[in-house]
């Protein structure tokens, strides 16, 4: 039985309900709804999923099942500057793993984690399609190409 109380600000609830309404409260539009919510909140906490469940009239377990299926969706907030290292094949054979290791070392965090001050978070992704620039690192919207482990410090410096 449900004992959890979900607490959200009214405008957040209204926003989510509004998103559901734009998609006609149609459960088939779940993924589009989740995209909109993640864009707005930066991540998809349990509370948001509960409201979506209410809006689309579908079990929250199913929503969680979808959120955990797709790697694009996250339930943890990203850092102010999310860092993604492409580990697609082209980047991998051109040394992306070493770049990733360097980021881990410099930031002291693992993939999927954020720094304590929530400034940086680290994730890996598969192919952004800029294979000519391999290895590729994304910080927020900015793309860094042909990154070598030695460049990592300088990249981070830009955000200090």
């Amino acid at each position, binding site marked *: 039985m449900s004992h959890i109380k979900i607490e*959200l600000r009214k405008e957040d609830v209204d926003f989510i309900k509004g998103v559901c309404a734009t998609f006609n409260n149609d459960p088939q539009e779940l993924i589009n709804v989740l995209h909109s919510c993640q864009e707005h909140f930066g991540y998809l906490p*349990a509370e948001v999923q509960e409201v979506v469940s209410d809006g689309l009239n579908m079990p929250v*377990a199913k929503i969680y099942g979808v959120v955990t299926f797709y790697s694009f969706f996250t339930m943890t907030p990203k850092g102010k500057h999310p860092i993604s290292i492409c580990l697609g094949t082209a980047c991998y054979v051109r040394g992306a793993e070493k770049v990733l290791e360097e980021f881990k070392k410099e930031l002291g965090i693992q993939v999927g984690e954020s720094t304590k001050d929530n400034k940086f978070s680290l994730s890996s992704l598969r192919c952004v399609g800029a294979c000519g620039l391999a290895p590729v690192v994304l910080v927020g919207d900015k793309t860094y190409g042909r990154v070598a482990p030695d460049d990592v410090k300088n990249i981070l410096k830009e955000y200090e």
Partner: protein
Amino acid sequence: METIKLTIDNKEIDVPKGTTIYKAAKELGIDIPTLCYMELHDMGIENKPAGCRICVAEVSGRRTLAPTCSTKCEPGMVVKTHTPRVLNARRTVMEFILSDHPKDCLVCSKSGTCELQDMAHRLGIRDIPGAEYAAVSTYRMDTSPSIIRNLDKCIMCRRCEMMCNEVQTVGAISAVNRGFMATVAPAFEQNLEHSTCTYCGQCVSVCPTGALTEVNHVPQVLRALVDPTKTVVVQTAPAVRAALGEEFGLAPGTLVTGKMTAALRALGFDYVFDTDFAADLTIMEEGTELLDRLSRHLKGDTTAKIPILTSCCPGWVNFFEEYFPDLKDVPSSAKSPQQMFGAIAKSYFADKIGINRKDMVVVSIMPCLAKKYECQRDEFSVDGNPDVDFSISTRELASFIKQANIDIKNLHDEEFDNPLGESTGAGVIFGTTGGVIEAACRTAYELYTGKKLERIEFTELRGMGGVRSATIDFDGLPLNIGIAHGLGNARKLLDEVRSGKSQFHAIEVMACPGGCIGGGGQPLHHGNSEIIKARAAALYTEDRKKPLRKSHENPFIIKLYDEFLDKPGSEKAHHLLHTHYFDKKKKIMIKK
């Protein structure tokens, strides 16, 4: 009907178009092994995600092996189910599955009834290569009032997910995560207790492994039995007697009422009573409520809620509290037989034998897992002392009997104790879909018309259809009855009630497919719906053998009202035998 000719293992067969290879093979006596496939034929329930890949076979013209459970027969198909290629594939896949499964079979509660264990044995697996470095997916254990989830043992057959979502429409669990960490869990992988779970236990009843099991209350019962200060009273639900024998190798549908009574006595229970007695009592209260609402309704009283819904089934109660809280004054306010029994045992009967209710322990033997949750509800206790202390399932009882080395098959039949052991045939049929409403009709008819019921059996109310309806002639008043078993079917009727379109005067709902005989606490049916049908037949047989078959004729019921309760629906009856429901729908709170 169009038929298809094909060859399976060099044997030709004609099957109707649309038949799967798996079923066609079965017709030929070829039992293809499978772990995820499951069908309850008569209830239209089928699980075939084609995920375990154990049932694969070679099919002519196909590059890869085909899952027979979900591959339809085609004309001229040549199927081979046991070539070296198939056997090697099956064994290797089985090794994969076992490599991601705990190896604690010896102490697993499913040991002996585990389909995975059986399959390992059947395929002759003697070794799990690479086990020394193979990662095993592990998850947090979760114990709710009724169900234990140990997902380390989940093999992703998805049967539970199918039961919870498609059959029951409860939606408490879903496949979550991806790849190696995929499993079936409630939202946010919280405890089941925090989900919309109704504890119907249908997930448990289909789980092939030890991933989903009931909470075992036998140790607590044992502790009560050895405590000399406690008087331990046991009640047994109708569906138990029709299924318990299966755990001891008896054919499905073998009635073991007398042997069960003897075994319970041998286990040391002080009084062995029958929930059927409380079922008769339920009919008195619920039937009275029905007639009251009906007559007010017929007089044009719009406050009289019609249809009335039965309320014996705790899974069903949990369901409408969660999904239809707006309709919570529609179901009958009568408690379930388990709780009526507890309330009477700890008042009327405790007084009678002169003990304090605190010194009495009431144990129920139930085909049900939701009963474990029900007896723990706050409203069913007095000063913290529950009316029913422990509810154990048919399976737990069987295990208890085995532990106590009681040879139940060779026990002599014994009778229930009095006064709470006497019941009519009406109480017996409570255990099957349609039974409660048939019992109610037997009594309501006579009370309403004042005439004697000539034809006791309302066969039009029986059967295994998921949603059934019948009109009973109450001496000129056509009474429209609806019946649903399985919560998904119940939802259909409830939606009609909500929208005001329901044509029924009374609706019986049981959460489990087949009713209590198919309950979550029953011996596992392993996808054989014949077993469930045999149990139903057994209950109708017991009913037929009873000298009294209408609840209001039960002499001990009559005596109970005379001595204690006054009359059905009296203030005292209301206090002890009726309840109220709660809105349990999740609320979204606005942060201030």
